[in-house]
């Protein structure tokens, strides 16, 4: 789909030992160990971060921008993800986080949770007007939207056609900063502070919109020490948060869904659970639901691989922080305002699992794959570099691997040649 050559999730070849942990865990079978290194098949990768989570050698990592990039702009705006608020022990007020960001060097703050509230309001209005195909599937987690475009074409029409809180916030932040300062938009740097690599990729290859207004993405874990140091020095906060319970709750799985104030919703998190739900939705086996919130990371955005705190601890902190907040401080007005958040580019099916564009060829290949699979040991050991015997057979038939990359086949061949008992 789209121009999708950029990925935040990458391999550091020096650190990779070629073990089989990541190939087994990848939900789109996008990783193969070739020549001793776990290489990513770009068009299948959804940047979910499972490989980063599971790699014992820290060889899978996310690329994000350096804090020094703030120097490239005359004026900078920080866009904190709600998940950031769950990272601090004994935090009583979000205003301290926002003030800390200003003290670090940002010129102004635009909370992503403000736009989360607007998206929640827009979703409520669209659903009430019966304008969305149900069950509506949330589009805020970019991994989910990409997963649907790669593996679940039938569900594309159910995906909420509203740009994510991150992209909406960037658009509004840039316009607001320009209005306030008169500085040209290209001299205003808008930086999202991200819990995950998928948002880094999404900032460059946006879902649902042609143009991304994000100039850089910083990692929560990268700026954390610097931010904490500043926060510890604050005597009284300089700014006040402009969002309420609804916006902040988007950090946790179920936050977006519960904000719709409807009962028939489902919220699932973690790739394995998400895949199970998508599969059942595809077969129309989940009935009586009108909203499905899915998050790739366990616990929701607080479980992103670029966060600092354990997701369950972060979730508990968010719950505590919500306590004295108003319900919601941001609302969309009339119909014309809704349009500002609508997709201007639909999600498209990227049939990357297809063996061939020609059905006849694909069938011949399938027959070959079946035959080869029968010859393989059915151990899914991963020694050949593919996650299963079946995927190895696919790789052989599509010319990506040799049959005797399988050590059992190799042993048989050598035995036949008199080499090995």
């Amino acid at each position: 789909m789209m121009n999708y050559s950029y990925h935040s999730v990458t391999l550091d070849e020096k650190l990779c030992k070629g073990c089989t942990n990541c190939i087994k865990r990848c939900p789109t079978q996008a990783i193969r160990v070739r020549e001793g290194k776990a290489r990513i098949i770009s068009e299948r990768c959804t940047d979910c971060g499972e490989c980063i989570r599971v790699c014992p050698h820290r060889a899978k990592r996310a690329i994000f921008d350096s804090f020094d990039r703030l120097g490239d702009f005359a004026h900078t705006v920080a866009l904190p993800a709600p998940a950031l608020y769950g990272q601090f022990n004994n935090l009583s007020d979000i205003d301290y986080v926002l003030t800390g960001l200003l003290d670090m060097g940002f010129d102004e703050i635009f909370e992503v949770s403000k736009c989360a509230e607007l998206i929640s309001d827009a979703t409520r209005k669209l659903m009430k007007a019966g304008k969305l195909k149900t069950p509506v599937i949330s589009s805020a987690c970019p991994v989910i939207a990409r997963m649907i475009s790669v593996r679940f074409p039938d569900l594309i029409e159910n995906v909420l056609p509203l740009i994510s809180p991150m992209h909406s916030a960037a658009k509004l932040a840039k316009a607001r900063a320009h209005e306030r300062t008169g500085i040209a938009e290209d001299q205003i740097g808008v930086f999202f502070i991200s819990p995950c690599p998928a948002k880094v990729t999404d900032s460059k290859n946006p879902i649902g919109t042609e143009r991304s207004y994000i100039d850089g993405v910083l990692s929560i874990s990268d700026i954390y020490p610097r931010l904490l140091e500043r926060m510890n020095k604050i005597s009284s906060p300089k700014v006040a948060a402009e969002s309420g319970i609804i916006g902040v709750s988007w950090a946790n799985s179920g936050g977006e869904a519960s904000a719709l104030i409807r009962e028939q919703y489902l919220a699932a998190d973690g790739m394995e659970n998400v895949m199970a739900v998508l599969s059942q939705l595809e077969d129309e086996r989940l009935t009586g639901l009108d909203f499905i919130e899915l998050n790739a990371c366990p616990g929701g955005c607080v479980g992103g691989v670029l966060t600092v705190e354990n997701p369950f601890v972060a979730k508990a902190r968010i719950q505590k922080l919500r306590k004295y907040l108003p319900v919601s401080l941001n609302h969309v007005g009339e119909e014309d305002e809704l349009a500002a958040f609508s997709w201007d580019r639909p999600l498209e099916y990227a049939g990357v699992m297809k063996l061939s564009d020609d059905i006849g060829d694909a069938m011949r290949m399938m027959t070959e794959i079946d035959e080869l699979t029968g010859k393989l040991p059915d151990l899914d050991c991963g020694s050949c570099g593919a996650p299963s015997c079946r995927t190895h057979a696919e790789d052989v038939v599509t010319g990506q691997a040799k049959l005797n990359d399988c050590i059992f086949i190799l042993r048989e061949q050598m035995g036949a040649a008199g080499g090995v008992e």
Partner: protein
Amino acid sequence: MTEKVTKRYEVSGADFTHAGEASGKVKALLKQIGYSPDAIRRVAIAMYEGEINMVIHANGGYVLAEIYPDRIDILLEDTGPGIADIGLAMQEGYSTAPDEVRSLGFGAGMGLANMKRYTDAMRIESEIGVGTKVYITVKS
């Protein structure tokens, strides 16, 4: 030569938790072969309904799927009690499913009706005390 991929799956009647696995496997194959998303969805739903029927009513059986470039033919065969009145069984809302199955959300009497709705052709052969064969076809 006409290309054909044939798959056979046993459907266990003893273990309800495995019901639906065969249709999941066929779905993955059809995605690789390049069937249209709409055809894949219809196959998945119809085959799933058939599998569930075999588990609920017939203590299992087997599914034979023949995949061609232009269509998929699926035979679901069991050695269950047979269907006394096929016309009645096809009616929406008619069900003989036991209560324990209904408590799981199945047995709404939509199984055969859905299979008919989602497929391009469907035929049922059934003999009391011998078993039931359901043939369905979906165009790619």
